[in-house]
């Protein structure tokens, strides 16, 4: 069970005078159960890449395999792919359309052709997962706050019970608390249900805190790909392409340069705190 991108390229406006090569021979594999962070500066092709993973965009070149089967084969069912690979777009709240929250969340499972009972059960579960209790069910989605709308939209995708969940900057424009709540929920889904998660983010702190593996996009290429500690060790290269490592990484590296005995693969504040305390303990 994996998604494999084989040498895919995508050109917007192919054949027109304003061609834009948004993806440039990208090859990568997304195995089951990983929590992957996809980072890259604006316009590096992150959103373009993830839209290939559920077949919304068709690669200009290259092939994508889902569980070993080409998704571009005649016999491949896009519908089943879209139910297995759930994609939450940037600013997903703009896609809400129903008169109340509950019905909107039912839209996805209904499209899967399920019966009424399981549809309602899934919608309820999904809303619980994003922390919206039954009191919100009959509220019009347009009366909710931005963060609440975002949750409804995420629930709309979760209700389809995807095996792979892809989130395109789910926390853009949210306050720190709303951001933590949503990411904690996603991390919980990953932990407890073994869901594969791809998180597109601009926040290195968020990425460092949650993900196992990082893919760095740069001008349509997958520039770096590896365990998150490994990738943040290359913080100079990250800076060259307009990104950065989490702020603690810089402190740690500065400390190490001053001769402080500390490991240089620390990326979260919690780890840093423990490591610094340990090192100080050694000294005294």
């Amino acid at each position, binding site marked *: 069970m994996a998604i494999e991108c084989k040498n895919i390229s995508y050109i917007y406006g192919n054949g027109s*005078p304003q061609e834009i090569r948004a993806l440039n021979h990208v090859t990568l594999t997304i195995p089951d159960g990983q929590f992957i962070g996809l980072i890259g500066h604006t316009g590096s092709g992150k959103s373009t890449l993830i839209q290939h993973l559920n077949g919304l965009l068709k690669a200009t070149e290259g092939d994508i395999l889902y569980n070993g089967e080409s998704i571009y084969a005649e016999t491949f069912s896009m*519908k089943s792919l879209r139910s297995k690979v*759930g994609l939450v777009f940037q600013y997903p709240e*703009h896609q809400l359309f129903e008169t109340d929250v509950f019905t909107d969340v039912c*839209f996805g499972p209904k*499209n899967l052709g399920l019966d009424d009972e399981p549809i309602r059960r899934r919608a309820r579960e999904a809303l619980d997962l994003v922390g919206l209790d039954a009191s919100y069910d009959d509220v019009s989605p347009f009366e909710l706050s931005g963060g609440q709308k975002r949750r409804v939209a995420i629930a709309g995708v979760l209700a*389809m019970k995807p095996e792979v969940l892809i989130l395109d900057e789910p926390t853009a424009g949210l306050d720190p608390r709303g951001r933590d709540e949503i990411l904690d929920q996603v991390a919980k889904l990953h932990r407890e249900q073994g869901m594969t998660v791809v998180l597109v983010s601009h926040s290195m702190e968020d990425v460092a805190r949650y993900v196992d593996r990082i893919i760095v996009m740069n001008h349509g290429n997958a520039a770096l790909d590896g365990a998150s500690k490994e990738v943040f060790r290359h913080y100079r290269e990250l800076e060259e392409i307009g990104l950065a490592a989490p702020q603690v990484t810089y402190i740690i590296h500065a400390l190490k340069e001053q001769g402080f005995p500390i490991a240089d693969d620390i990326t979260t504040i919690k780890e840093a705190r423990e490591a610094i305390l340990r090192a100080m303990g050694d000294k005294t």
Partner: protein
Amino acid sequence: MIRDITIGQYYQTDSLLHRLDPRTKLVGTLVFIVSLFIAGNWLCYALAAVWLAGMIRLSRVPLSFIVRGLKAVMILLLISVGFNLFLTNGETVLVRFWIFRITLEGLRQAFFMALRLIFLIMGSSLMTLTTTPNQLTDGLETGLGFLKKIRVPIHEIAMMMSIALRFIPILIEETDKIMKAQMARGADFETGNLIERAKALVPILVPLFISAFRRATDLAMAMEARCYHGGEARTRMKPLVYETRDRMTYLAFAAYLAAMIALNRIF
């Protein structure tokens, strides 16, 4: 997918035609169209063809882009050629079958008609290919400014036009995004009967309208915040001024029109 629709189909490059004042191009196109209706013999059409070819060369737009505009009106072209071919009365009958007959006059007229339509479409495509929609509305606003005297709200009309033009690509992009988001939730727009398909549009139209209204109020607010209060006493950041090249173009077109009238009279 939906993004492939182009409106106003501007072809970006740098050429004399691109740099001309939009008013010059509007008048030039008008003169060219008028000249096509004056044209009544072979020499006139030859002159128009040479003139058009020259303009196309000057514009640096690939011929394929200009010809592309013809595809859309192919049917219209065929119908009008057909009518002229079969329904023109004349002396010299060339072919006769059943109730139809093709006369020499009919053939001639059909051929001229086809040429006239093709030139007309190529000429006006050339204008839209070399002028951005915004320049075009600017040109119309300034060019038709005299209508303000008779209380035609030219500024408001031009503003509405340019806002509408500006919003078309935005709304297309938005539609594309919403469609994809609903497809990611399993929506299906391609199969089903008519009623099912109409119903499938609701998840697109509702968010689209909401976003259009949101954008409209945002824009109104932003315009008001910058003290927009209609066209009265409003100056432009880039006022349209005629340059030497525009004057030359006017002269060239006047000469062209005169030549056309002369050719039509003499022969």
